[in-house]
């Protein structure tokens, strides 16, 4: 029996077989013959919202979301527009009723307020103040008396929280000037407008504001009067703002 010789054809056949094996069996992981795959699509992750509404008396609600970046700095109603006929001896202006509501879906753990710093054109005061004023000419007056006193140190403010939207039952504390044990009325004191908390000394009202919840505040202005110094406040227009803020 003669010994078989490997011809070039035989070598080519071997190479083809090796090549086929490499394609079919090799490269595991990169060219796996079998594979399986599942995908879990549609996973969702939603944030809630934190939006404050602010209503004065029976006015329209003003929303934080209406302002830029959820800060509505100019669009809410004024607490008071006290006529220029107010003078010592007349009754204090009717208190303003403020309703704050968290119309978002996330609880606010903190409710704060402060008075922004105001720069009033023509004010004798130097620099922005939490309360500011200017001289003005009352209607019908041709020669106004220009007072020299600072009304921010004379006019006073008081903030009382109520437990109900009808403002019938005050809470057992006073928001400003703060007391945790007495109502503002029982406490019997007011605080000067110039003593309102500034942006750097914000006051936190305990208990936050739950999602969907409301809190009710009565804000009263008082002019104690002083027979010896009243004239110094004639023809003066006083300004202050209050900012209400909630944090998640």
């Amino acid at each position: 029996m003669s010994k078989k010789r490997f011809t070039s054809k035989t070598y080519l056949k071997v190479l083809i077989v090796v090549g086929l094996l490499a394609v079919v069996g090799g490269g595991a992981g990169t060219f796996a013959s079998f594979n399986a795959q599942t995908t879990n699509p549609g996973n969702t992750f939603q944030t809630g919202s934190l939006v404050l509404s602010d209503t004065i008396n029976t006015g329209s609600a003003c929303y934080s979301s209406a302002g830029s970046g959820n800060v509505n700095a100019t669009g809410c109603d004024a607490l008071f527009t006290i006529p220029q006929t107010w003078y010592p001896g007349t009754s204090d202006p009717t208190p303003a009723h403020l309703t704050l509501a968290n119309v978002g879906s996330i609880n606010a753990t903190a409710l704060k307020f402060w008075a922004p710093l105001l720069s009033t054109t023509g004010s004798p005061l130097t620099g922005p103040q939490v309360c500011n004023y200017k001289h003005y000419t009352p209607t019908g007056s041709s020669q106004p008396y220009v007072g020299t006193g600072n009304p921010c140190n004379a006019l006073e403010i008081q903030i009382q929280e109520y437990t109900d939207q009808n403002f019938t039952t005050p809470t057992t504390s006073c928001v400003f000037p703060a007391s945790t044990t007495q109502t503002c009325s029982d406490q019997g004191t007011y605080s000067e407008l110039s003593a309102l908390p500034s942006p750097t000394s914000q006051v936190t009202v305990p208990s936050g504001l739950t999602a969907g919840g409301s809190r009710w505040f009565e804000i009263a202005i008082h002019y104690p009067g002083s027979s010896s110094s009243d004239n110094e406040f004639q023809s003066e227009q006083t300004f202050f703002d209050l900012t209400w803020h909630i944090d998640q």
Partner: protein
Amino acid sequence: MSLRELKGVLLLLMAIGAAAYFGGGTTFGSFNAETSNVGSAIASGTLTMSDQVNAGTACLSAGGTPQNNVNPACAAVLALTNVAPGVYGGVAQVTVQNTGSIDASKLYFWAPQVNATLNGALTNGNAVTALTVTPLEGTVTSGDALVVSFGTQTQTFTANAAASGGATSISVTSLAANFSYPIGTSVSDTSSDTTANNTDCYDAKTTTPGTALATKGTDLNFNPVTGNPFCGAALIFVQETTGGNHYCWLGKGSSPENASGMCSAPISVNLSSALTTGGPITSLPVTALNGNVASGDSIVVVSGSNTQTFAASANAFFGATAITVTSATPNFAYPTTSTVTDSTTLSVALNPDTTDTITNFDTAHNTIGKIQLFPLTGNGTINNTATVELSHFNTGTFSRIFQIGVYLPAPAGINQNGLQGLQSTFGITWHIDQ
């Protein structure tokens, strides 16, 4: 030769012929033997997988409409609503199982590309100018390649206009379909997952409020979705818990791998039994942990206005029902409704984290940056030379379990109002190879 002699010769030749005919051998051997093996068959095995979210129904790779052992439509892992920064998000468990008869040498997970399935069939030979799809997961950019796959059939179309996340139609350059692709055919944008703008994860404003009647995303003017900011802020983690071993595959704790194999996974649980003020305790009894606690972490127990911080003195992993703490006497009789959180995980580990986001998962760990799931050998250790990563059904480790969670961090001093009322939508793909 006589006639008689001739007849004899002919008879002899006939006898030889008959012998040759019945003998049949080429060598005319007297003895021979023969066998035949008939009915030989070759049967291939199977390599299929299932994917089960929590205790839901297992979703089978072979059960997908595209009929190619790729199921693009398994259940969502997470559906979290009314999330707030710095507050526990959520976690879910995914069990991946080899349901076939062949070992898988490789097990991976990755972020899918922008995808959908056909919601309108294509007809072979007909020109296609738009793909009608299920709500698109991610954003398609004009010029993107859209691969349509069903069984062994595949075709690539080119988008000729942008399509936003959630869109149900993608405009494409006209091309005749090479097959009648049915509804359910998978559609993938192979040009996606390259930047924050074209990831599988996409943001949209919420259209329903987090709580009844509350403000929803579409009511707000300060929460733009351009660039998918929520996907870029929300953190994701994937921690394996197979067989009681732990390994952080994705998220804070994965790079470098945490020595104990734990991701920074926040917890939010309740006490499982009340605390008393009678004396010091060294363990907090809690409902099964939905995250991890690292030794040394601050554990905060809160009930109404009462709060107390304990110091964890040992690690506690997913599912643990007690947290070992340094001896301390409760300052209040905390009831079982008290919440227990890990403030260290939140404020130290996760709130400053801007790396382990869903966006970065999508861009770094897509089909190119697959995460290979080597078998675990202990907490924080793997065997990266193993030849089998998911054994065939009913043998060895044929199931592996993963905890997947998300968390929206609250970085100090940063206003995150822009993330209010948003929804991120994203996916996860699991894959095995023979």
